[in-house]
C-alpha cells in the first residue's frame, strides 16, 4: 500500500518543533505585554500614592513621624527562605527544561511510558490516560508544562511571605502531585528495583514536601519543633531506604559477576554514561561504573551505612550529630547526583535534576530550622503581623504591594499554561497537527471534482451530481484489505461522529479500490465489519472495472494487483469536495502507526476541512 510503513512522528519533526516554538514565543509575548501593563499600572499607582501621601503630610505633619516610628517587620525565617528560593529556582529550571524541542513528541514515549513499564497495570492505566491526553494535544501539553512550572517558580521567588507565598506553595503541591502520578508513575515505587540512589521515590515528591513546608504559617518556623520534625521525617525516610538498599537479592550487592552479569547499580550507571552529555561527565560516570563493577559489595555497604547513619543522626534531633549528618548528606547527594543520576536533566528529554538536589535542600532546611529557631516573643510578633489587614498592608507597604503584583503576574503565567491545556483535555479528538506532522499538511486546491456514476452498497445508482449541496469526503478503500483500509474506514466513521450537526451537510464516500473483489457483497461485508453500516451519510461505491479504473486514474488512486498473495496496492488518499462540487483539499490518508491518537487526529483534520468548506 503506498504510504504504508511511514515512520512515526519523531522528536525532531520540523512541524511539531516549529509549532511548539512558535506557541511558546507567542505566549511569551503575551506575558511580556502583561508585564509591561503591570509595570505601567504599578508606576501609575505609586504616583497616586505619592501624591496622596504628600497631601496628607501637609494636612497632618505628625503623621510622617508616626509612619517613621512603625517597627520594621521580622525577616523571613531562613529555613523557609532556603526552601522557597531553592525550589523556586528548581521549578523555574524545570520549566525551562520543558521548553526543549523534543518534549512534545518525545516525553511520553521515551520518558513517561518507559518509567511506568515496570509498574502494576493500574499504574500503567493511569499513566496511559495522561499519555493519551498529551499525545492528543502535544503542543498544548508541552507549552502548558513550560508555563505552569515557570509560573510556579517565579511565584515562589517573588512572593516571599503571606498569603501569596503560601498560595503559590499550595499550587506547587498540586502540580507536583500531577507530575508524580501521571509523569513519574509515582516515582516507580510500585515497580521492582526501587532505590534512593536512582531517585526513588521521585524527585517531585520533595517538591511537594517543600511546598507543604512553605505553606506552613510563618509562626511554625519560630519553633524548633518544626526543624526537628523535618529532620525526624528525613531520618526515618533515610533509614527505610538504607534497609531497602541492604536487602539481599535485589542486585545491589554485586558489581560485575564474572565479567558478564552486572549488578543493578552498574547497569544503571552504564546506561546513564551513554546519554548525550559532555565527555568529561561521561568519563566520570563510566569510571564510577567501572569502580562499582569491581567493588560493588563495598560500594553498596558504604551506601547502606551512610543512609542508616545519617538517618539515625537526623532522628536524634541534636545539633551536633545533625550538623555532621547534614554535611555528609549534602556531600553524598552531590556525589550521587553527579555519578549515578548523571545530573538528571541531560540528553534532550531531561525534565528535572532528579531527586538529590531537592532532597539536600530539605535536609539543609531542616537543619537550619533546628539551629536558628527564634524566640517565643518573635513567634507572637509574627502572629500580629499576619493579622494586619490585607488592604492596609497594600497601602502602607509598597514593597508588599509590588510583590503581590508580581505574584499575581506569576499566577497569570500558570493560568496561561493550565487553562488552554485543561480545555484541550476535554476534547476527545486529537489535534490535527499529529496527522500533519506525519503525513504533511493537506494540499489546498480549487478544481472541479471528476464525476462518477457508480453503485452504492445497497445497489442504488449514485452520481456525483446527486450530491451537490453537500460537502464530500472521498477516499479509496479495498474491501478485502488487511491493514490500512479498515483503519481509514474507522477514521471516516470517527470524523462523521465528531461532526455533530454538520454531518447532515456532509457525505462520506469510499470508492472500491480492488478490481477483483468489488461487488456490493464485499462493500457490505466491509461496512458491517467496521461499523460503517450504521452511518446514514456513508456511501461505499463500486462499479465496473472500466468505470473504477477511470476514477482511479483521475483521482490518483493508483490501484495495482500484486501477485503471490499480496493485497491490492493503492494510494492512501482523501479528497474534500465543497458543496459546489469543487475539490478543495487533497490529503494523504496514510494511517501510520494507527494509534487512537493518529486516528482521532486524522478525523479531526478531516472535520476541520469539511467544516471550512461548509461554512465558506
Amino acid at each position, binding site marked *: *500500500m503506498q504510504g*504504508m*510503513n511511514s515512520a512515526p512522528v519523531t522528536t525532531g519533526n520540523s512541524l511539531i518543533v516549529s509549532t511548539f516554538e512558535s506557541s511558546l514565543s507567542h505566549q511569551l509575548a503575551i506575558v511580556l505585554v502583561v508585564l509591561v501593563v503591570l509595570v505601567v499600572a504599578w508606576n501609575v499607582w505609586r504616583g497616586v500614592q505619592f501624591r496622596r501621601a504628600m497631601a496628607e503630610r501637609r494636612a497632618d505633619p505628625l503623621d510622617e513621624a508616626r509612619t517613621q516610628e512603625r517597627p520594621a517587620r521580622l525577616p523571613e525565617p531562613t529555613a523557609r527562605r532556603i526552601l522557597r528560593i531553592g525550589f523556586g529556582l528548581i521549578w523555574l529550571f524545570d520549566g525551562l527544561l520543558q521548553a526543549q524541542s523534543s518534549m512534545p513528541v518525545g516525553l511520553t514515549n521515551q520518558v513517561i511510558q518507559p518509567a511506568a513499564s515496570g509498574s502494576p497495570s493500574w499504574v500503567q492505566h493511569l499513566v496511559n490516560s495522561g499519555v493519551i491526553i498529551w499525545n492528543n494535544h502535544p503542543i498544548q501539553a508541552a507549552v502548558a508544562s513550560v508555563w505552569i512550572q515557570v509560573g510556579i517558580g517565579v511565584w515562589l521567588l517573588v512572593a516571599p511571605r503571606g498569603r501569596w507565598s503560601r498560595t503559590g506553595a499550595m499550587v506547587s503541591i498540586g502540580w507536583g502531585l500531577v507530575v508524580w502520578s501521571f509523569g513519574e508513575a509515582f516515582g516507580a515505587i510500585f515497580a521492582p528495583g526501587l532505590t534512593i540512589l536512582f531517585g526513588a521515590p521521585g524527585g517531585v515528591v520533595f517538591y511537594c514536601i517543600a511546598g507543604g513546608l512553605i505553606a506552613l504559617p510563618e509562626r511554625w518556623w519560630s519553633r524548633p519543633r518544626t526543624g526537628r520534625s523535618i529532620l525526624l521525617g528525613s531520618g526515618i525516610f533515610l533509614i527505610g531506604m538504607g534497609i531497602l538498599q541492604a536487602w539481599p537479592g535485589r542486585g545491589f550487592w554485586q558489581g560485575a559477576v564474572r565479567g558478564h552479569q552486572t549488578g543493578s547499580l552498574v547497569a544503571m550507571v552504564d546506561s546513564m554514561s551513554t546519554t548525550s552529555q559532555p565527555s568529561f561527565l561521561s568519563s566520570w560516570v563510566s569510571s564510577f561504573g567501572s569502580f562499582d563493577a569491581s567493588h560493588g559489595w563495598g560500594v553498596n555497604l558504604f551506601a547502606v551505612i551512610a543512609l542508616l547513619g545519617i538517618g539515625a543522626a537526623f532522628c536524634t534531633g541534636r545539633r551536633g550529630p545533625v550538623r555532621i549528618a547534614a554535611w555528609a548528606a549534602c556531600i553524598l547527594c552531590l556525589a550521587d547526583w553527579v555519578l549515578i543520576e548523571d545530573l538528571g536533566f541531560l540528553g534532550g528529554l531531561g525534565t528535572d535534576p532528579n531527586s538529590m538536589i531537592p532532597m539536600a535542600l530539605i535536609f539543609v532546611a531542616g537543619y537550619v530550622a533546628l539551629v536558628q529557631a527564634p524566640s517565643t516573643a518573635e513567634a507572637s510578633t509574627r502572629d500580629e503581623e499576619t493579622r494586619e489587614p490585607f488592604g492596609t498592608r497594600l497601602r502602607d507597604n509598597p514593597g508588599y504591594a509590588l510583590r503581590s503584583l508580581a505574584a499575581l503576574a506569576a499566577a497569570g503565567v500558570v493560568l496561561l499554561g493550565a487553562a488552554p491545556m485543561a480545555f484541550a483535555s476535554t476534547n476527545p479528538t486529537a489535534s490535527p497537527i499529529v496527522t500533519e506532522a506525519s503525513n504533511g499538511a493537506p494540499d489546498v486546491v480549487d478544481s472541479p471534482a471528476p464525476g462518477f456514476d457508480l453503485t452504492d452498497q445497497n445497489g442504488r445508482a449514485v452520481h456525483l451530481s446527486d450530491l451537490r449541496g453537500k460537502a464530500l469526503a472521498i477516499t479509496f478503500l479495498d474491501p*478485502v*484489505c*488487511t*491493514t*490500512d*483500509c*479498515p*483503519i481509514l474506514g474507522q477514521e471516516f466513521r470517527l470524523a462523521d461522529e465528531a461532526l455533530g450537526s454538520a454531518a447532515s451537510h456532509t457525505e462520506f464516500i469510499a470508492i472500491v479500490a*480492488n*478490481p*477483483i*473483489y468489488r*461487488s456490493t*457483497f*464485499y462493500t*457490505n*461485508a466491509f461496512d*458491517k*465489519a467496521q461499523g460503517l453500516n450504521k452511518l446514514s451519510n456513508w456511501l461505499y461505491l463500486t462499479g465496473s472495472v472500466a468505470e473504477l479504473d477511470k476514477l482511479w486514474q483521475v483521482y490518483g488512486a493508483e490501484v495495482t*494487483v*500484486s*501477485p*503471490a*498473495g*499480496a*493485497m*491490492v*496496492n493503492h494510494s492512501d488518499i482523501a479528497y474534500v469536495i465543497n458543496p459546489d462540487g469543487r475539490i478543495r483539499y487533497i490529503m494523504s490518508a496514510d494511517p501510520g502507526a494507527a494509534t487512537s491518537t493518529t486516528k482521532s487526529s486524522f478525523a479531526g483534520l478531516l472535520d476541520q476541512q469539511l467544516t471550512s468548506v461548509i461554512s465558506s
Partner: protein
Amino acid sequence: MKLMKTGSRKPMVRAKKPRGRVALSAALSGVAAVATLGMIGAPVGAGGYDTSSPLGAAPSVSAPLTSSVTTPTATWAVVLMGKNDGFNLFWQLFTFDAASGHWTLVTPPGVADNGGLSVATGASGGNLLVGFETSQALKFSPLALTANGGIDWSPGGLEVPLVAVPSAVALGSGTHAVALASKGTQSEIVARSGDLTSWSPLVTGRYLAGVPSGRTCGVSSISAVTIDPSGIVLAGVSCRRPGIAGVLLDSDAPWHLAPIPVSGGLLDDTFAPIRLSTVGTTVEGLFAAGNGKGTNLVATWAPDDTRPWLVSPPLALGATGHVVAAGTGSGSTQFALVRTGASLRADVVDGPGERWYALPPLPASTATVAFEPNGQVTALTVDDTHFASWQLTADGGSWAEVQTVKVPIAFNSSG
C-alpha cells in the same frame, strides 16, 4: 436450487426451525435421549459405541494448512513462503499439470493471504475452491474458484471468517459447496445457496453436539468438512469420548456417526480430525488419536457409501512429534510430514490394508510432499522466495531437484 439429489434423501437439517416445530423437536429429542440412555452400556461392536466410558479431552492437534492434494489430472500444493518477520510470510498455491509436467504458481490474486489458504478440489481436476483465512484487520473470508487449473479465478466470499483448518471448504458436483465458518466461539457449516457469495447455514457445532450421535461422541468442535460423491455433507468432529473417530453425516438418518472401526489400543484414545476430503469416489480422512501419553495418526477411507469405512494401522508420532503437512496422493494414498525435534520425515500409506512407510530422508527445507497424477512422489522445498520440486533418483534413495520457481513476493505489502 436443491442441495441434495432427489430420491430417498431426507431434507438437510437447518440450524433454525419455525417456532411451531420447537415443541415437536423437543419431544423427539426427548425420545432420542431416552433411547440413547437405553443404549448406554451396550457392548462395543460394529455400529455401536461404548458410551459408558467417560468423556475425556479432545487431543490438542493443530491441523496444518500446508498440504497437497492429487486429482486424476492435476496436483495442487499449498505452502508457506517468505520471511518470518512481521507479516512477510505469504501462502502460495502451486499446481502441477500432468500434461505439461511443470509446477506453476497460481495463487489467487486480490487478497492478502498471510492468514492461510484452505483448498478443496472438485470432481474435475481443474476445479479448485480456495478459502482465504482472515488476518490482521480482515474480518471475513474471501473465496476464489477456478475451473481451469488456476488460470482464471472467480471471486466469492463469506461474511464471516473461515475456521483456520485445511478442510474448511469443500466442493461437490455442479455448484454444490460447503464451508466451515467461525461465528464467535462456535463453528458452523454453511452451504452455497446461489452465487459464490451466497451461503446459508446448514448446521452448527452446538447442534451437532446435542444430537444423539453428537452426545455419544462428545463433540467439542467441527474441524473439517467434505462432500461425498453422492452429495452428502460430512463433518469431521473432535470427540471427547475415546475410541470414536468422529465423522457425522446427514444421510439416511439425521446426523449420525459414520461407522469408522476403532479397535485395539486406540480404544482409549480420543480422536481429532486433521483433514477430510473426497478424492474421486472415496472420502479420505486423517485423524490424530491421543491419550495424553503420545499421539498416533490414523488414516481412514470410505470407498463408497455402500461399503464400510476402513482404517489404517496407527502411525505413532511419539510424545513430541507433530504433523506439519498432510494430504492425499493418487488413488487412495495419504501422507503426513512429521517433525520430531529437528528431524522431518514423510510417512505414506497407499490405501486400505496397507501399512505406513517412510520416504527417504527429505531435502532440506521441505515444506510438503506431493504426488503427481501418475503416482510419482515429489518433495517440495521452499526457501524465502524460492520454490523447488525434487524427485527420487533412480535408486530411490535420494532426491534430485527438477524444477525451481522464483516467487515474486511483495515483502512489506501487508504492513
